């Protein structure tokens, strides 16, 4: 087999393997104080059974990206373009971005094939219904299971997410549970329809450290067991290291670095990624932190050139031209002129 064929075969396998492919996604909001380019040309690939961590600071567009996959963005004053290709269970590839948001097809995907969990489970659970009611409702909406079978499935789901005494917990109301338990219920509901993709938007940020560890363990275990793909949105690089296979670092609506988790932590390449890692205090390390200068700018400000330039220590004249995402030979993508000459292909 020649090299060319091998590459082609690998490409084919990779194509097969890709569950969700976001291409050149742009989302903008018209607000009273100006137009915000919240997401500005994001490309992401989620492979089967893998976890893609999307990491960035507040306002970088990471949550908006996830929400656009589910068609959960407000319809008013929102402009969206690009494609979101999702391989559905039937094997066909759908462009979610072009599906009518309230259409039947979208509903059959949202919550069924793609599920989502949020930061604060209390606001995503209805306070007036019991946990059991809400899980049964999820089952009714997305699966053909009914009656006693549905009840058994609900108990099974609660067991799966590690809730003790699931039969009695079915009758509990969300406010009677702790934050960690509520997040487990949210996960159980998300899993009700056996989704192939789970979007997790800062699912452990509101939780205590020990509870966070439990939930992360749970999510990893469930992924191994069910083989689903996960998009894990977070600002916490520690959580990224714990959870991810691949990582996309986002800054002001653009992917600035895209790498496997080992590459990212071993060879952080973009100045922003390096800056983030250097800003983190670590246990056992005593040397002075070297944080990034300045603060996260307002996304409404229009910028020409590299968006990170005015906080970057390695800024040069070329940074006034927007850098492309450069593919480095060892499989890392980075949006920075510093690596222009190492680049294989430019996209």
């Amino acid at each position: 087999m020649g090299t060319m064929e091998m590459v082609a075969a690998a490409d084919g396998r990779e194509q097969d393997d890709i569950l969700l492919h976001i291409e050149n996604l742009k989302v903008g909001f018209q607000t009273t104080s100006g137009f915000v380019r919240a997401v500005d040309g994001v490309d992401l690939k989620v492979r089967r059974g893998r976890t893609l961590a999307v990491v960035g600071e507040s306002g970088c567009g990471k949550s908006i990206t996830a929400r656009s996959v589910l068609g959960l963005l407000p319809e008013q004053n929102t402009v969206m373009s690009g494609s979101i290709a999702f391989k559905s269970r039937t094997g066909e590839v759908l462009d979610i971005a072009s599906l009518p948001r309230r259409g039947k097809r979208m509903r059959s995907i949202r919550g069924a094939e793609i599920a989502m969990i949020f930061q604060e489970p209390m606001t995503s659970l209805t306070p007036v219904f019991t946990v059991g009611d809400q899980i049964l409702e999820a089952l009714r909406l997305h699966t053909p299971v009914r009656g006693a079978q549905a009840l058994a499935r609900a108990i099974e789901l609660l067991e799966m997410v590690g809730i003790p005494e699931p039969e009695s917990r079915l009758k509990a109301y969300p406010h009677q549970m702790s934050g960690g338990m509520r997040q487990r219920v949210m996960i159980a509901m998300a899993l009700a329809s056996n989704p192939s993709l789970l979007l997790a938007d800062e699912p452990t940020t509101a939780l205590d450290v020990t509870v966070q560890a439990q939930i992360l363990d749970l999510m990893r275990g469930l992924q191994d067991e069910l083989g689903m793909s996960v998009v894990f949105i977070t600002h916490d690089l520690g959580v990224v290291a714990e959870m991810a296979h691949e990582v996309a670092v986002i800054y002001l609506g653009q992917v600035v670095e895209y790498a496997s988790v080992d590459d990212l932590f071993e060879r952080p390449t973009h100045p922003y990624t390096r800056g983030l890692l250097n800003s983190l205090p670590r246990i056992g390390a005593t040397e002075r932190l070297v944080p990034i200068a300045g603060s996260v700018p307002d996304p409404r400000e229009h910028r020409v050139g590299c968006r990170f330039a005015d906080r970057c220590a390695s800024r040069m004249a070329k940074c006034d031209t927007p850098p492309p995402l450069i593919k480095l030979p060892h499989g890392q993508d980075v949006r920075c002129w510093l690596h222009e000459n190492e680049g294989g292909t430019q996209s």
Partner: protein
Amino acid sequence: MTNAQPLLDVQHLSKSFVIGKKLLDEGQTLRAVDDVSFTLERGESLGVVGESGCGKSTLGRTLLRLYEPTSGRVVLAIDGAASDFSTIKGEALKQMRRKLQMVFQDPSASLNPRMTIRDILREPFAIHRHVPAAEIEARIRGLMAEVGLREDALDRFPHSFSGGQKQRIGIARALALEPDLIVLDEPVSALDVSIRGQVLNLLKDLQRGRGLSYIFISHDLAAVQYIADRIAVMYLGRIVELASAQSFYAAPRHPYALALLSALPVPNPKLRRGRQPPRGTIPSPINPPSGCHFHTRCPFATAGARLHRCSGEVPQLREIASKHWARCHFAEEIQQSSLAVR
């Protein structure tokens, strides 16, 4: 310094709240801070760590008399004279407040949105009049420079600043009274990752430059390690471990502290490990478990006589190693040195 009086000597401090008290309802007692004692030397910083509901924020606020302590003493040694801060009143309290300041968690909420930065920084001078009026403006400008902000920011309102900048303003306000001790209540938790490091560095520099003492309250063990000389771990109102940072991070002696450290996600995929997070969640502080509060989740309080002791007998804060206290019946058995690898 060791034979001199410590700057702060907290003795058996407790703070209880009565929850749900109505006209005909007695309500329940929540012991948010339960018999806490520690000392703090001048220039030293104590990190207080724990999860939600452990009482760390209440401790900070009770120390500053934002809450009146239920019992106990807070002895402050200022200018060579010691006095009990927890009972003084009126003008004496006001004067003493100068020495104890606070930086809050939410930088947006801690600045009055209707005042300019100049007015906000002028307020401490207006309250205490410790600086001649003619010098105030120069002092304000000095404070701005000290926290790394430009003077032209003075006439703007808080909302036009980023979180990190607002937190710097909050720090400048605390410094205006030239305090000896600053209680930092989760000062970086609300900030973006890239900003946290800046504020932590600033706090460190200020401490060195001004000889400040800090009580650094946080749930983030890594941030605490960066600032603190000593660590106090709290669980359901009690200090369960108190040690120098070095000794603590090298070998924590309380099972809860151990659990906290092992639960902390580490930004290094090579160190992904099979962890054992503690079972269950933090019990309600209104009705904490008997004996050792942690026994319901503790991997060491397994069964039989051991569980009997842990659930029946409140452990004392004992000195396990030199200057290393832990509140556990079996602290001697807990050895964890693998943590040092990180």
